[in-house]
């Protein structure tokens, strides 16, 4: 939970363009005036920002890497304290920076929304930027005489609720930091929402935005966070009140999600919604993970510390019997189900497990 009770005070909009046919830069269009939304439009804007980077979103935390005078993080650090006139000018500098790094003709132009505001108590600042792709769409028109509905074509439409149509970055001022800290990471917490980051092998496509423009990189703690995710998710499944054989699928899912899935980010919400059937258990899972200190939104995946754990799936039985299989083969080739075994003296059957291995034996020790 990073943005509690946040208010957006200033919004200014510029436009950046795709490189022209020769590959040369087209200068961005500059606005000098702030956008004044009415209260419902402002609430909708708050919703867009929150949906992009709020708790449960796919936004990932990034680390500030570039801290030079002309890099965006330094610009942000100065901008938040500027008066409106200077803020308007600086926001255009930010748009120019984005324009500069859009160095491939394949990167589309778009609207750059620069905004700032306050959050939390005591009140802290935040600074944000959205690059919104422009799409076409329709607007509903009602003929006042006949009540007939028609659609008016709108060539340029943006900031619709689908957050994959825009990239968002927010710099959030931390609650406590030294006034003279030299590393901007001590002062700012950065969240980046970019649907390309979450895609398989999406890092490269997204790099111009998070690295070139924002001057950020993946946090070094990713490997530790991923390990923590694996361990706590494992513990959650272990503690679930259900038969061991029913947990097999969930353990398989955990391995699949981390190892087999090619996405470069991990999130508790995504795992819950994709692999846990019961909606209340989904809620319990995300709350449990948040309580264990895992981010409420996504984080970048780094399997370095859990490679060995993910290599094999092991199932242990009471009489020192074990089944071990490569993680990526387990789900596909091994199935098990509970069956009733011999009855004890009270007529209660022992709990046995029927295992099917879809393969033939090739060797024995």
């Amino acid at each position: 939970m990073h943005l509690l009770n946040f208010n957006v005070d200033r919004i200014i909009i510029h436009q950046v363009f795709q490189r022209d046919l020769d590959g040369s830069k087209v200068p961005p269009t500059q606005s000098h005036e702030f956008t004044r939304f009415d209260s419902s439009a402002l609430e909708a804007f708050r919703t867009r920002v929150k949906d992009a980077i709020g708790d449960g979103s796919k936004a990932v935390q990034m680390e500030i890497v570039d801290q030079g005078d002309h890099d965006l993080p330094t610009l942000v650090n100065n901008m938040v304290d500027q008066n409106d006139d200077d803020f308007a000018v600086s926001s255009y500098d930010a748009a120019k920076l984005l324009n500069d790094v859009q160095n491939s003709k394949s990167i589309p132009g778009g609207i750059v929304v620069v905004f700032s505001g306050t959050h939390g108590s005591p009140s802290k600042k935040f600074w944000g930027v959205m690059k919104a792709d422009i799409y076409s769409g329709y607007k509903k028109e009602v003929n006042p005489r006949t009540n007939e509905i028609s659609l008016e074509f709108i060539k340029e439409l943006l900031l619709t609720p689908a957050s994959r149509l825009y990239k968002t970055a927010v710099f959030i001022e931390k609650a406590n930091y030294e006034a003279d800290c030299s590393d901007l990471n001590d002062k700012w917490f950065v969240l980046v929402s970019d649907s390309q980051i979450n895609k398989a092998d999406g890092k490269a496509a997204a790099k111009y935005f998070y690295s070139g423009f924002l001057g950020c990189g993946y946090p070094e703690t990713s490997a530790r966070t991923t390990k923590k995710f694996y361990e706590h998710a494992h513990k959650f499944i272990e503690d679930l009140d259900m038969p061991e054989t029913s947990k097999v699928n969930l353990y398989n899912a955990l391995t699949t999600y981390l190892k087999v899935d090619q996405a470069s980010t991990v999130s508790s919400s995504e795992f819950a919604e994709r692999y846990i059937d019961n909606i209340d258990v989904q809620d319990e899972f995300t709350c449990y993970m948040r309580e264990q200190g895992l981010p409420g939104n996504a984080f970048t995946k780094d399997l370095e510390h859990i490679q060995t754990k993910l290599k094999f799936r092991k199932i242990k039985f009471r009489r020192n019997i074990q089944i071990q299989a490569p993680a990526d083969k387990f789900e596909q080739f091994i199935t098990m189900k509970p069956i009733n075994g011999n009855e004890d003296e009270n007529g209660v059957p022992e709990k046995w497990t029927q295992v099917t291995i879809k393969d033939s034996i090739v060797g024995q020790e």
Partner: protein
Amino acid sequence: MDSSYNQRFNRWARMNQEEFKEKWNQEKAIHEAWGKLIVNKLSESLADEGKDLDSFLKLPAKHRLKDDKSLIDKAFYRADKQYRDPYSEIEDKVGARLVVLLIEDIKDICKIVESCELWTFDPCKHFDNDRHESPLLFTYQSVHYILRPSEEIEYDGVTIGTEFPCELQIRTLLQHAHAELTHDAIYKAQKTVQPEVSRTVAKCMALIETTDTFFSEVTQKLNYGPLQEHRINDKMNSLYSNLTGIQPINCKSSLTIWDQFEQFLDDSLIDKIKAFTEDDNYKVVIDNIPQRLNTNIIYEQSIILFVYWMLLFKKRRLLRDWPLDKNLLEPLANDLGVTLEG
């Protein structure tokens, strides 16, 4: 009782009939005032308990003096009543009656009657006792109290002494219907009542008792659930006003929400919500409720705390089963910074 005793008794009584009338005429105003005071006091107490009198009482609450003729008749000429001192022994010279829909409503009124310090009460008839004592009998059912001032009171320009009785009758609408039939049609019948008529009247009472039980059952099923059992609404309202300093309003929409998420309503819910409101991280959101009052009516209701809690801890269940317009959740999710996108 032998006939000579009866003759002697009646002779003695007739001697007192004129005195009886005179005394009654002198004291009518006092009885009248006492009946009026009782009705006013009970109406006031029911309103204090949050009852809407127009709907709670199925007939307007009224008091009534016994008319002279039937009083004399009762005192001196009824074969089944033989009083030594009819004036003080007849306790229903003034009566008041409350008619309600349900047996449970009667219990509510009894509680009020028995806890009021204005009078002393004598519970002279209760259908529960009658049913216990004569389980095979189906006859007139009602609750009767004889109320007397616990100390002398000035009211309506008269002084009411502690010896003045008033009979208070409390019944369900169906019991009342039965009483009306038996009182008017049977007691005042022009001819001897045939056994089969009595039998039919008894069958009516059996049916009425059964129906009253069904009425209670239906009402209980309609109005009683975990929300009432755990007094969730009261507890939420007091939590809300403690946190915000504002008296919350109660809207029907909140009942719809409670209904939908009934599975979460238990003894521990209030503690969980309280823990959330006491968490330093969320203090800012709670503190901000007064500023948002005008933006949406949900900020004025204590259920907002439950919805905040659901957004944080049961978000998917909330989104799947939310019974009202989803847009209502957006501003609350914005306050918490919680995304609603799947």
